Structures are given as C-alpha cells and as structure tokens.
C-alpha cells in the first residue's frame, strides 16, 4: 500500500519505513514556533519542568506579532519575558519591532521552513507551511514546551482527504476562494483529525502566496494539516531562502484517502464566508447590498505581496466609501517595503486607506481596528466567529483581497467586476 505525502514525512521523522492512519508515532521536529500570546504559557511550563536548554537554539522561533506594537502593559510584559528568555537561552530567531511580521507570513519568507519538514507551532494556523510541502500543525503551549525541550513530539497519523483541482483560474480568483469553497463544501469539522491534501493540474498554476493562503485555512475545516505537492513553484520560492537541507516527498499513486473530491476551478466565483462560521460560504454576488463599516486587508491568510497587488489594482483611482474604514496590513516588513517600492502605498493613501504596521491586530480582535456593537467588517482574515473582531454583536464577513477592496469602495459587499 502506498503512502501520502503526510504519512511519508511522519514516517521519515519517526525512523520508520511505513506508517498508517490512526497510529501514534514519536517524531522528530524541525522547528518549534510560539508567539507573544502562546509563548508565555510555554515558558511557564519550561520553568516548571526544570528544563535547562532548548533542543536547538536555531530551531525555536518566537514571533511577537499578535498584540504588537505592544497595545497595553500586560502585552509589553509578555514580550519582555520572552525577550529575556531568548537572550538567556541563546534563541536565534526572536522577532519583534521592525524585524517582526505576522508569523505565518514571516517564517516561509525567512526560509525557516522547507519541504519535508515537521513543524509544530503554538498557533492553530501553523498549518500554513503545508504550502511548502511540509507537515506542519498547530499545538498548545504545553505541547510546544515538550517539543522545545526534546526536539520531538507524538503525533497520531491522520487520514487524508484529497482535493483534485482542475481547470483554469478565472480573473480575481485566488487560493482564498478555493479554500472558502472547500470549507463551505465539507463544513467546519469536515476534515476533523484529517490531513487536507491539494492535488491536480490547477494547483501547479497557483502562486505560492495563494497556496499559503489556502493551506492557512485548513484548520477552519478542523484539519490537522493542509499540504501541497512540491513543484517548480515551490522550488523557485525556497531557492534563495531555505539554507538547510530539506527533502521532497510526494504522495504515491496508490496512497489511501478517506475521501477524494474533484473541483473544477474554472467554475469558482469570488467567495465570502458569512457570520459566524467560515463554512457559511456564499458567492459574493449573492451578498450585494450588505453595508459594511470596515474592510481589513491583511493577516496570515492574505497579507502577502499578491494580496497587496490585487488590492492596489482594485483601489487604483478610487476612493474608499464615506464612513468606511479600510485598514491595509502588509504582513511582514519585506512585504511592507515591496508594497512601498511598487507604488501600492500611494494607491492606498490616495484612496483613503489606513496603512498599519505588520501585526495580527484586528484579525483576532486584539487592537488596531476593533468593531463596535452592530458594526460589520469585510475581512481577508480567516475567522468570523462571534466577537472575533470586537463586540459580540459585531459581524465579520471573510473574503479574498479583491472582494474586500471592491467592498471598501462601494461601502457594501461587492464583486471585483463592479469596480475593475
């Protein structure tokens, strides 16, 4: 019996020839990640267990992205604790201030993740790195401490669900529309405990930014990980980035899948997930006329250069509607700088947008764009749960950057064709 890419990566990291779904394996990890919210709990456990060092000072990463630039005293104290820990234990990859970006945009950009890696992160969207052909999954702070200390952790080998995508991508359609379509199809627990694998011709023509965006939301279907095949696009992306050895795995033709879905991407139109579940997906065209108070373009889902480009293409020569706040958040300093050089910032400023420094900010209702009672936001982020962006009686609609930008101009949910 053949193996899937996920099974092969776990087998290799557990020194096994073969593993099958349901088995629990002890596997080495290549990277352990935590942020300003989850690291403090990990470090408390680190002290409690009496550990004296991390397994590898190059492979533990701390990113201060959620509540920074520090929004209040407790956030500042958290960052201080993590900074001091990083100094004491010689952690190379501690990111804050002008070096900091949203973790799941920052790590691939910095070349910290390569194909075939096993990565754990104390953040549920750690599944993003599956875009690079890595096995990457979110864990809690205690699991992360275990990984930081031992360089390993236990994993239940997940069953896999395959999405075979064919056809030609239509204008304005990105990885975000694909993943919203999938979550709408299988539901928020449709892939519970499973691996969500992307395959098919249409995937080879999907950009790396779009793959990262799609893998990012695998967790929104309950998946343990999302994973893409490694191809020319992947290798071109990692070429000047990943400095350490990596290994490329591909699924066997006779690998087993719990389910296989076929998707014709040429039929995909712009998608929007309505409150209060990411699976509550409709075509943007069905939602015309829904007024918005805010548009957020950013986050670990859609704060990359492709997203900034699409938003700029739509916003160029237009104004953000009166009474709408359009907040653009380039996810990393490099994306920020590129957007500036490419003239996107001029477009955003002319249109009346607010440009935020790289931060998670409003995505989790942290700061920099919180909603009042009854307010509504269209957002390129990944969660629209009750109260996610502020007041429990506010609403979040999830979309890709094209719909968010078009909606900001119209003041109501709009399809990009209405503008461009």
């Amino acid at each position, binding site marked *: 019996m053949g193996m899937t890419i996920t099974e092969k990566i776990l087998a290799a990291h557990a020194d096994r020839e073969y593993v099958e779904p349901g088995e629990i394996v002890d596997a080495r990890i290549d990277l352990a990640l935590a942020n300003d919210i*989850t690291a403090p709990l990990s470090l408390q456990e680190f002290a409690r267990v009496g550990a004296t060092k991390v397994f590898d000072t190059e492979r533990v990463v701390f990113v201060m992205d959620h509540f920074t630039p520090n929004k209040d005293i407790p956030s500042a104290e958290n960052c201080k604790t993590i900074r001091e820990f990083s100094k004491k234990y010689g952690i190379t990859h501690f990111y804050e201030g002008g070096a900091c970006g949203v973790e799941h945009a920052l790590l691939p950009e910095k070349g910290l993740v390569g194909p075939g890696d096993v990565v754990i992160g104390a953040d549920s969207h750690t599944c993003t790195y599956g875009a690079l052909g890595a096995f990457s999954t979110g864990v809690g702070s205690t699991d992360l401490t*275990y990984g930081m200390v031992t360089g390993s952790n236990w994993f239940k080998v997940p069953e896999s669900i395959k999405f075979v995508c064919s056809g030609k991508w239509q204008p304005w359609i990105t990885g975000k529309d694909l993943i919203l379509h999938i979550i709408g199809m299988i539901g928020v627990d449709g892939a519970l405990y499973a691996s969500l694998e992307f395959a098919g011709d249409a995937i080879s023509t999907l950009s790396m930014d779009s793959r990262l965006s799609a893998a990012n939301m695998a967790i929104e279907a309950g998946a343990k990980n999302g994973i893409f095949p490694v191809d020319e696009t992947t290798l071109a992306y990692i070429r000047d980035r990943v400095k350490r050895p990596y290994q490329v795995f591909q699924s066997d033709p006779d690998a087993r899948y719990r389910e296989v879905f076929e998707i014709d991407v040429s039929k995909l139109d712009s998608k929007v997930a309505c409150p209060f579940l990411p699976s509550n997906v409709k075509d943007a065209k069905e939602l015309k006329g829904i007024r918005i108070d805010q548009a957020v373009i950013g986050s670990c889902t859609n704060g990359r250069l492709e997203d900034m480009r699409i938003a700029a293409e739509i916003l160029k020569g237009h104004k953000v509607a009166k009474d709408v706040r359009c907040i653009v958040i380039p996810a990393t300093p490099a994306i920020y700088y590129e957007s500036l050089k490419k003239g996107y910032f001029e477009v955003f400023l002319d249109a009346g947008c607010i440009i935020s420094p790289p931060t998670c900010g409003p995505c989790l209702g942290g700061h920099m764009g919180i909603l009042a009672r009854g307010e509504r936001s269209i957002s390129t982020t990944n969660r629209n749960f009750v109260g996610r962006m502020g007041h429990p009686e506010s609403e979040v609609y999830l979309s890709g950057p094209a719909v968010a930008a078009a909606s900001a101009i119209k003041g109501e949910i709009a399809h990009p064709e209405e503008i461009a």
Partner: protein
Amino acid sequence: MTLKGKVWKFGDNIDTDIIIPARYLASTDPKELGSHCMEPVAPDFPKKVAAGDIIVAGSNFGSGSSREHAPIAIAALGIPLVIAKSFARIFYRNAFNKGLPLLEANLYDVVKEGDVVEADLSTGIVTCGGVQIAAKPIPPFMLELIDAGGLIGYLRKQLEGQR
C-alpha cells in the same frame, strides 16, 4: 474515577473565541481567564457555575485557535469534565495536557440544563436519570499521559531519567 455534577449546556461549534475571547489573552492568570469564560454567549456563566459542574456540548467543541487559555479558563471555574459530541483536535490535546478530561458522547440531545450526570472516566460510562450512555473510550495513550500527571509530568520524568 467517577465525577458527578450539574449540567450546563452549550451547542455546536463552541469555538475558542467563545471560551475565552482574545482580548483577555494578555493574561495567563487562571482566575482572570475563568472570569471571562463563555462571555460572548453567556456573560453570567462564570458567576453562576459552581465548582464540580459539568459542561455538555454539541459537536466540534473547542474549534479555532490553539490557545491553551481555553482549557485553563474552564478548569479555573472548577469544571472537572466536558462531555461533547466531538472535540476539535488541538483543544482535545490541550485539555488532556492541562489535566482537564474530556469525554466524547452524545449527551447533548439527552440531558436538560441542570440535570445531574455521573461519569466514570475509566469505563467512559455516563449515567443520567437512569439512562446510561457509553462515551468513546479515552485513547490508552492519553490515559498514560494522565497517569504521568499530564504531558509536563511525563516530560519531567524523562528529564530526571537523563540526569
């Protein structure tokens, strides 16, 4: 180990933003986290719930973020057990790692808020008003973890072995 307590019912997809909203995550203090538990859907819950009470929920409990603040907030209120139709994966791991046991069973459609249920963790048998329901047994590996005092206890033993 048998637990007996009064039921608080919550529906499907109770996500971690409901269990503990992100705006409180700058704190790691269990008491503070507990005082905001379930705030978006039941603001009075922390005041009304008593130690020993049990949460009974629908499917996909704990979906969303990996924040361990979620099981910590629940445990801080003295809730010793959550019984749901199904749990999100990361929450499941976190709860056991933090010493909060979970049972997977469809109790939600059977009990009323305020009913008293009794659960035997080792057999997974839940009893309510004379009705018995068998929960999915807790995986042996999780039981081993609990025996070792959670993941941190397990790790501490490993480190002591190396010294």
